[in-house]
């Protein structure tokens, strides 16, 4: 049996004939950009999971945690409906909050998002950077 890795979304990205919206996620820490295919109306969290992007969604889109925090481009952010109070409350606690932060489970894909870049906040301190502090050879 395999560990089911991703819990939201239908499990696979759209096929080319579904006329997918194409955009990218960026793991900010590794500066690693991954292109994804999305269906209009899917949430960014669903898109992430369908495309095997590492974005948690601990509460399964029920607006109880902020594990799916993403950072949007200003232009995209400005054109979205304002977040609900509940989302704002959770964003207050999000790691690495920015002025264009949203929860991935609350943002739905539109055609206008074609080509956008969604940043994933860098996860933790990077210990490779401080390698000299570590005695890596026992």
């Amino acid at each position, binding site marked *: 049996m395999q560990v089911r890795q991703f819990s939201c979304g239908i499990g696979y990205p759209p096929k080319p004939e579904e006329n997918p919206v194409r955009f990218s996620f960026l793991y900010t820490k590794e500066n690693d950009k991954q292109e994804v295919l999305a269906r209009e109306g899917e949430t960014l969290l669903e898109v992430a999971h369908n495309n095997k992007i590492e974005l948690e969604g601990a509460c399964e889109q029920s607006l109880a*945690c902020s594990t799916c925090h993403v950072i949007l481009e200003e232009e995209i952010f400005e054109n979205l409906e304002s977040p609900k109070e509940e989302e*704002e409350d959770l964003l207050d606690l999000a*790691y690495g909050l920015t002025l264009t932060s949203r929860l991935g489970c609350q943002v739905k894909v539109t055609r206008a998002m074609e080509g956008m870049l969604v940043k994933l906040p860098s996860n933790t301190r990077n*210990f490779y950077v401080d390698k000299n*502090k570590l005695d890596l050879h026992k």
Partner: protein
Amino acid sequence: MVRSNKEYRFAIVGSGPAGFYCGKQILKNTKNVRVDIFDRNPHPFGLVRTGVAPDHPEMKKIEKDYQEILRDTERCRFFGNVWVGTNNGIPIEKLRELYSGVVLAYGATSERKLGLPNEESLRGVFSSRQMANWYNGSLDDILDPEQDLDLQNLKDMAIIGNGNVAMDISRVLLKNPKLLQPFDAPTPVIEQLMKLKLKNLSVIGRRGVIQSAFTIKEIREISRIENVQLYMFREEYDQSRNDQSIEETGAGFSPLSRGWHRRTEFLKETCKFIDSIEQYQDITHSRNDTKNLFLRYLQNPIELLSNQISNRINKVRLQKMVLEGEVGHQRAVPDPQNIQSEIECQLLVKSIGYQSRPIEGVTFNSQTCTIPHQYGCILDKNGQIQPGFYVAGWLKRGPNGIIDATLRDSVETFRIIKHHMECDDLQEKNTTVEEVLKLIPSDQKSVDFIDWQKIDSVEKKRGEEHGKTREKILVKEDMLKIIK
């Protein structure tokens, strides 16, 4: 993915969020690595089961994610009802010999104390953990609700500390207990809560409004409970807003400033202000149906007063505090004018923080009550890292933070594990179930995933009969009987 195909075996001690997130990271990013998860309880999920309040079912959805990990029985095994490092359990050294790596994620099973002489002996004084254990149906130190809580005679209550645990307790006690019915609060708990006549609840913080420990989400939820009115004392609010505190809520001071600012604004708009003692007396003694929640600030409990005959708490004496120190590092110190006051309470809950306990054979920082580590790799007594020995969650960074923090922290621990795997710093193992069982005392029955599924389905079935998601089994022996 980890760039290594070696057959590593990992033991994770503790099956709460930290343990599961570590396990998930390891399994997801490797091919030939297997994970065994140990827990002292016969049930998995730690505080998701016994910490997350029963009226927050959306938060308990994470259990599903964790259950998926256990379902991968080829690569993940569960050893419930097994102690490690303490209580006549498996010694840490033995576990480390048996596995390529051991991750300690057993959390915080103890709590901080007020430091007042009679806090252990007075009736009606409990820790937040005891309260949460009670309404969450934990197998640990269950209160006797008739004797200890005496809810039918409870009119005034105080909670010391204002974190989210204090908010959970407040909400559970202020809410109509019928609203808990559909979820997994034990039926005896709901029956007790039905008797409750709570009128005045004071939640007491040492520092000011801006340093409140609860999140806006929790206080907003309380403010929406039917027949509940929130209050602050004008004087305490005003004195909380010194220059340093206002600077703390300013943009750019901290990523959390926005939250502190929004929360303070919310409190200002939502709470009614109390301007005089007379007004306070009127509110606490009014005969309407409204339940009052007083958010008190800059107050420190200095004495627990009791009824001599019953030895039960009836008042707490508070000392007025003032803020001192630099922006972001303000402390509460006694007001030089030595201003004291008393509030009535027939129940007092200490909610000033959980604490981890040390286990034998592992270095422990007794100041912070955490295990010294570097990026999650445990340090020995000389401060050297020990590849193959790791820590995650509250035991690593102290007992606070929401689930996101634990997730990020487990990812950090996984990164160092990954690094050690790729550097060939770990030994390959093929740990069998028999080898593990040999280490468990013969009178102790371990619980595997199949066993847990039996317990789980009994609880769900009993719940279903009463229109609930689950009826928790409250006694460990009863749980073990199901799998005999």
